[in-house]
């Protein structure tokens, strides 16, 4: 079959790639990871070769060595209260500990992982039942069940660890279930179903693959809990006293703490270090598996240095009626070892009184970064590399007091996603009134009156009732009106709207655009409208700045630029937009 369409113009060049290192290498490159792997390997080897390494039999009593001090003849770590060699007992005890870990891991994984897979993949009633069981087990103090078990079986480490495996299985269950539920909703699982893959193949190929990382991490923590509980049970005296184990040694040394206090050091140290090593291993695994290359935080000294180097830029007033002027704004994000990659490369921008200015660009063009910079709400890791934002003679990037005074009061903000930008814990009225009073000094009843009037104005029917509602009770379009009301209520003269209609249906979008236009006209609001949609710009804006790759590539009046763009990128943008629009509509 000839599949080949005319795609020469579409051919894409891919960036050269860096080959990822294997997991074990990355783990060993992590200092804590290497340290804990090393320690655990030594402990495991000590357990495996206990018969070779032990000076004497762990149960051999040498009355002369009773409570012997460490480093005494033939007993490197001393003797216990019955004259048995502590080192030998700890070495042999390692075997018990290892066995305990294996049992706990095997049992908890068998129940937890399988249960989690079933619950997450099939959902419905099976999930409800399994969840109830898991919740119930989670709420039990596991030791209580182990004590009840002791009444039945007497000292029996294998049975106790088996039961503990069941008790701790909900950890795996919850983890696996959560991952499976989220993966199940991924479209690639739907795609696999569409091509007719069986459930077993989907679970094997797509779902197990996704949960293996979290399971490996969790295993380290579960093994740590296993060591802790095994030692704990033996320490309580519920273990088999004839078998040497870390817990039994600790118990014995604790009993003779007044005669031989140093003896408690060895078992305590061994137990704590083994658990710590597993916890650190789990943390290192988490770093390696889940944060692969994403986080490269800047050191605080480097951050301070960059802040010092950031040059302000003078406010050479280009036009007399400019209310807000951005000069040479450069913003960067950490990337790699203590280096910063700029996402804004010197943006200059003026907003005139009462003007609606569109800031247009595609994803990654930096348009939202400009908006966030003005309001001082850039993400924490962002770094301002240079430039100034002038409002009333104050540089908002440096004068924190001016920024605080301007936010909400002089400059209002309308976000993109209506639902996630309202706090679900407070009623609409509560958030609006509180927000208004944070910006303007006024009494509660005054604020309430103002908010009510404005809610009516933004087109909310029955505003009294809506004030008492929670965000989850209203629609997305209504939520966006509420947010607009919140931005406009303190009577600012500038509004920054970040894609205010992108999340809305097109019919609702038309109404919201209409509302923004009317509000701007009534109140003489200047507005920066950040959007990717040229139709929205054509509808609402008087002037426009086109952004590409962190720079403004063209600016001017909307009429001019839309008629005759000079920049090739702007032309491409316009052409692409118009290709998918109903330009001529016959009525």
């Amino acid at each position: 079959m000839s599949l080949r369409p005319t795609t020469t113009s579409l051919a894409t060049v891919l960036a050269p790639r860096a080959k990822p290192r294997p997991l074990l290498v990355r783990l060993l490159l992590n200092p804590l990871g290497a340290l804990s792997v090393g320690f655990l390997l030594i402990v495991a080897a000590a357990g495996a070769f206990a018969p070779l390494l032990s000076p004497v039999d762990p149960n051999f009593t040498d009355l002369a060595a009773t409570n012997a001090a460490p480093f005494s003849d033939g007993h490197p770590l001393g003797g216990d209260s019955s004259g048995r060699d502590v080192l030998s007992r700890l070495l042999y005890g390692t075997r018990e500990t290892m066995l305990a870990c294996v049992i706990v891991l095997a049992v908890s994984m068998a129940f937890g992982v399988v249960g989690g897979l079933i619950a997450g993949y099939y959902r419905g009633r099976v999930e409800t039942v399994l969840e109830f069981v898991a919740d119930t087990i989670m709420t039990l103090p596991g030791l209580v069940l182990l004590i009840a078990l002791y009444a039945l079986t007497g000292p029996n480490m294998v049975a106790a660890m088996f039961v503990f495996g069941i008790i701790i299985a909900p950890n795996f269950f919850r983890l696996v279930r959560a991952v499976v539920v989220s993966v199940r909703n991924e479209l690639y699982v739907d795609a696999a179903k569409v091509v007719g893959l069986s459930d077993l193949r989907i679970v094997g190929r797509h779902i197990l693959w996704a949960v293996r990382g979290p399971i490996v991490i969790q295993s380290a923590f579960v093994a740590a809990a296993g060591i802790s509980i095994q030692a704990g049970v033996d320490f309580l005296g519920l273990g088999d006293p004839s078998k040497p184990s870390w817990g039994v040694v600790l118990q014995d040394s604790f009993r003779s703490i007044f005669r031989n206090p140093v003896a408690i050091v060895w078992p305590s140290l061994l137990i704590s270090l083994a658990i710590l090593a597993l916890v650190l291993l789990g943390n290192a695994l988490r770093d390696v598996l889940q944060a692969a290359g994403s986080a490269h935080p800047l050191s605080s000294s480097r951050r301070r240095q960059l802040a010092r180097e950031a040059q302000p830029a003078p406010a050479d007033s280009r036009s007399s009626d400019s209310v807000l002027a951005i000069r040479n704004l450069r913003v960067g994000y950490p990337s790699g070892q203590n280096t910063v990659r700029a996402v804004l490369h010197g943006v200059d921008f003026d907003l005139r009184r009462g003007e609606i200015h569109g800031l247009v660009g595609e994803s990654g063009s930096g348009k939202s970064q400009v908006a966030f910079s003005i309001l001082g709400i850039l993400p924490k890791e962002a770094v301002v590399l240079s430039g100034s934002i002038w409002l009333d003679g104050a540089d908002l990037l440096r004068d924190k007091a001016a920024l605080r005074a301007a936010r909400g009061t002089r400059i209002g903000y309308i976000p993109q996603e209506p639902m996630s930008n309202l706090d679900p814990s407070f009623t609409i009225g509560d958030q609006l009134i509180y927000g208004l009073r944070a910006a303007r000094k006024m009494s509660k009843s005054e604020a309430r009156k103002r908010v009510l009037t404005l809610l009516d104005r933004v087109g909310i029917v029955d505003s009294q009732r809506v004030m008492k509602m929670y965000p989850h009770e209203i629609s997305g379009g209504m939520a966006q009106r509420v947010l607009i009301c919140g931005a406009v209520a303190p009577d600012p003269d500038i509004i920054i709207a970040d894609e205010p209609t992108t999340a809305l249906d097109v019919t609702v979008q038309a109404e919201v655009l209409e509302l923004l236009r009317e509000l701007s006209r009534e109140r003489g609001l200047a507005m920066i409208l950040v959007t990717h949609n040229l139709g929205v710009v054509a509808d609402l804006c008087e002037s426009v700045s086109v952004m590409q790759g962190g720079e403004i590539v063209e600016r001017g009046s909307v009429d001019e630029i839309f008629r005759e763009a000079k920049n090739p990128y702007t032309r491409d943008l316009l052409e692409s937009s118009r290709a998918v629009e109903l330009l001529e509509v016959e009525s």
Partner: protein
Amino acid sequence: MSQPILEVENLVVTFGHGRHAKTVISDVSFALHAGETLSMVGESGSGKTTIGRAILGLAPVSGGTVRYRGETISNISRNARRKIAREVQVIFQDPYSSLNPSMRIEDILVEPMAAAGVGGGRARVRELLDAVGLPSDAASRYPREFSGGQRQRIAIARALALEPSVIICDEPTSALDVTTQARVLKLLKDIQDATGVAYLFISHDLGVVHNISDRIAVLYRGEIVELDDARTVAMHPKDEYTRKLQMAAPVADPQLQKERRSARRAVLFGSTA
């Protein structure tokens, strides 16, 4: 006209049971013919995505039937579906979630062939990548190394792997930038010209579907309110809701947009303000 390849008859989709039951699609019928593009347009909650998912067996069909070349394909087993899979494929909206991040592109493209038991192997993978304008060294890479537009091309390649006669395109461009969107739409059109595949194209945007569709159906609250050839629906809609939809999307031309705005107000409020 010849016998349609895909027929949807009195389709009803209900989610949940008893008190919580929610009917998303009520009594929708339409037919898709070989080589044509039929678009389903509607806003959120109109059920447009659910129709596609019901045809693919991803949403429950509670009433009515879906037929492929006269054969019922609604409520069939996964095994029976495997046969249909060769004929009916899908391109999803979100190119980030539709490719398994831990699989190489090659494995993603081979998966449908392996499931259907057809060979072709690496040569076929190269052919598919070529068809969607990606270099053949893309095969050994992971999805995270690609941009949104490139990922969507990979998803298109996967849909093409079994040479289907129908592809359900569920908002394939709405997550993309506008310049990328134009290129992907052109690619879809080119593929149709080359292979004669039929598209069921799902979108919220009347403008996007206007140029590529032969016919357009407008959905509102789980029902088709208008279904006609593309030009008629886009330019001379009869239904009031379609008209609202048509007027609502702003166009990238300030003069034209001003006229449309007042026309829209005239439709809504009966006067030119």
